[in-house]
């Protein structure tokens, strides 16, 4: 049982990093990036390539290089690659595209990357993907799977907390405020001296780095990495987690991750009638998932923990509970 619990904890941490990164783009900035799983994929692959040995006929995999680097270099490499590609994609899509067009552009970039990595075997073994990926610091743990899981959980936990702290700082700082202003009204923000392109690009690069980190961790944890692990549909749970938890709020992101990935994603299997209905499990999981999202949007459109009103000390006498101006919500993403 403890193994499974640890396994869930690890998944929670990894998914949390992913959801946090999505929150930076979607929640804070309203960038409709539909291609963010590409960064996850790339992070996973580079993390794997950097830690695996050189390609040999014995390994029977086809990939183009292997560096056998020690921890934490593969991780850092993965993050850097994510950021680099994030920068490129950012320049491509953020220069003069908004709203739906931006969303589709990112989707196109994602699909190109996906089809390419899936179809061209010699890069990262195509559809079969990479396997036998070394796990970081596995040498210092005991031989058993069990004790290593503890170690990995601690590692993932530390990184998740670090990411959380990072995102908190980004959002609750003048930088985050400027980013929000860009989201709300671009030309208004520009007239106040904010550079929308620069702000968007920075957020995108930072988020890409975080997404890539989630990819590296996931690949190293499951010791294998193949296209289905970062396919298009993986974006939906991440976005659902944000809806349920609350966009623009990191605590919301954490709660949403827990609800969507752990409660819904894993909990369903424990309902007794599921036991011998393997194909119903998935269907029901998605139905609950869909219903939950719909219900949340209906009853709590701002999520469990909505974006916080910025508050400053003193002068709280006039506080009034009001809802955000609905007709304006997401106008910014509409371009």
């Amino acid at each position, binding site marked *: 049982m403890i193994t499974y619990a640890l396994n869930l904890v690890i998944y929670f941490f990894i998914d949390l990093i992913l959801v946090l990164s999505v929150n930076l783009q979607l929640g804070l900035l309203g960038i409709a990036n539909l291609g963010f799983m590409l960064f996850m994929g790339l992070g996973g692959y580079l993390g794997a390539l950097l830690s695996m040995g050189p390609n040999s006929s014995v390994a029977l995999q086809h990939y183009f290089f292997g560096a056998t680097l020690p921890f934490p270099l593969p991780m850092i490499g993965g993050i850097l690659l994510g950021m680099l590609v994030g920068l490129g994609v950012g320049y491509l899509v953020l220069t003069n595209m908004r709203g739906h067009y931006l969303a589709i552009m990112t989707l196109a970039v994602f699909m190109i990357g996906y089809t390419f990595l899936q179809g061209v075997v010699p890069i990262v073994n195509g559809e079969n993907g990479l396997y036998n990926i070394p796990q970081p610091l596995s040498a210092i743990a005991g031989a058993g799977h069990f004790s290593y899981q503890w170690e990995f959980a601690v590692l993932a936990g530390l990184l998740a907390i670090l990411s959380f702290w990072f995102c908190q700082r980004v959002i609750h700082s003048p930088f985050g405020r400027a980013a929000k202003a860009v989201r709300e009204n671009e030309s208004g923000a520009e007239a106040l001296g904010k550079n929308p392109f620069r702000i968007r690009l920075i957020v995108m690069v930072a988020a890409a780095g975080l997404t890539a980190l989630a990819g590296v961790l996931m690949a190293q944890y499951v010791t294998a990495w193949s296209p289905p692990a970062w396919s298009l549909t993986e974006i939906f749970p991440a976005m659902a987690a944000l809806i349920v938890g609350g966009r623009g709020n990191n605590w919301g992101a954490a709660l949403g991750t827990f609800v969507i990935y752990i409660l819904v994603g894993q909990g369903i299997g424990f309902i007794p009638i599921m036991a011998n209905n393997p194909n119903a499990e998935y269907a029901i999981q998605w139905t609950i998932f869909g219903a939950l999202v719909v219900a949340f949007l209906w009853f709590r459109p701002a999520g469990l923990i909505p974006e916080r009103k910025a508050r400053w000390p003193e002068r709280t006498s006039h506080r*009034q*509970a*009001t*809802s955000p101006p609905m007709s304006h919500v997401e106008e910014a993403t509409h371009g």
Partner: protein
Amino acid sequence: MLKRTSLESQAGRLAVKNLEVGYGSIPIVRGASVEVEPNRIVGIIGPNGAGKSTFLKGVMGILPPRAGTVVYDGRPLQGLRPDQIVSRGIGYVPQLRDVFDNLTVAENLDIGGHIARAGRNQRKDEIYSQFPVLAERRHQSAHTLSGGQRRLLALARALMSKPRVILLDEPSAGLSPQAMDTVWEHLGKLKDQGLALLIVEQKARALLSIADWVYVLVDGRNAVDASGAVLLDDIANLGKIFMGGSESNTDNHVNSVIH
């Protein structure tokens, strides 16, 4: 001085009684009453944030009234959707989002005439001759209009539906003095044609000199109402009424500015 007719149903009269409207749980308009009838211009003035626009939205069915009645032509309007209210013959020019940005001037007018197809083109031509600026720019997207042109278009769009009553939320905002004269003149003509006009304005002086009756709305309630001429005589007092009930406090404005 104008004699006010009784509440009893009179053809073409719009009577709003004790209207309460707000956003979510916050009450903004807390029981305001206004009446307007054909051949009349009725004005509403009041400080910023008094609830004037909210009042109009309540009448139009954009916000659901929590209390009060809206009766037009002897039949209640509350509970109807905005498009139903429009098709009863009530036109509306909103304060802010007032034209279809991405459609051309001509298309805006066509849509305005959506519910009154008969004679639509003729009315369009009339509007073009009344406001030649719009004719010049008929194939231009509305968002490329200047602020003043935009307001003209908003007014014209509402007129295209052949309304019997028309609610205007600050028609003069952004208009040059010249354009304002044209608009006031046009509104006067509409009144003479038998329309009922209900106008929210900040340019109190201009409104008072043309309106038959004016309501002063402060903090979501009727503060004063009188004929335009009477209020015009007493305009100095108006400022005090405004400030009395509003949240803004001008007295310490100037003093507090240390920049």
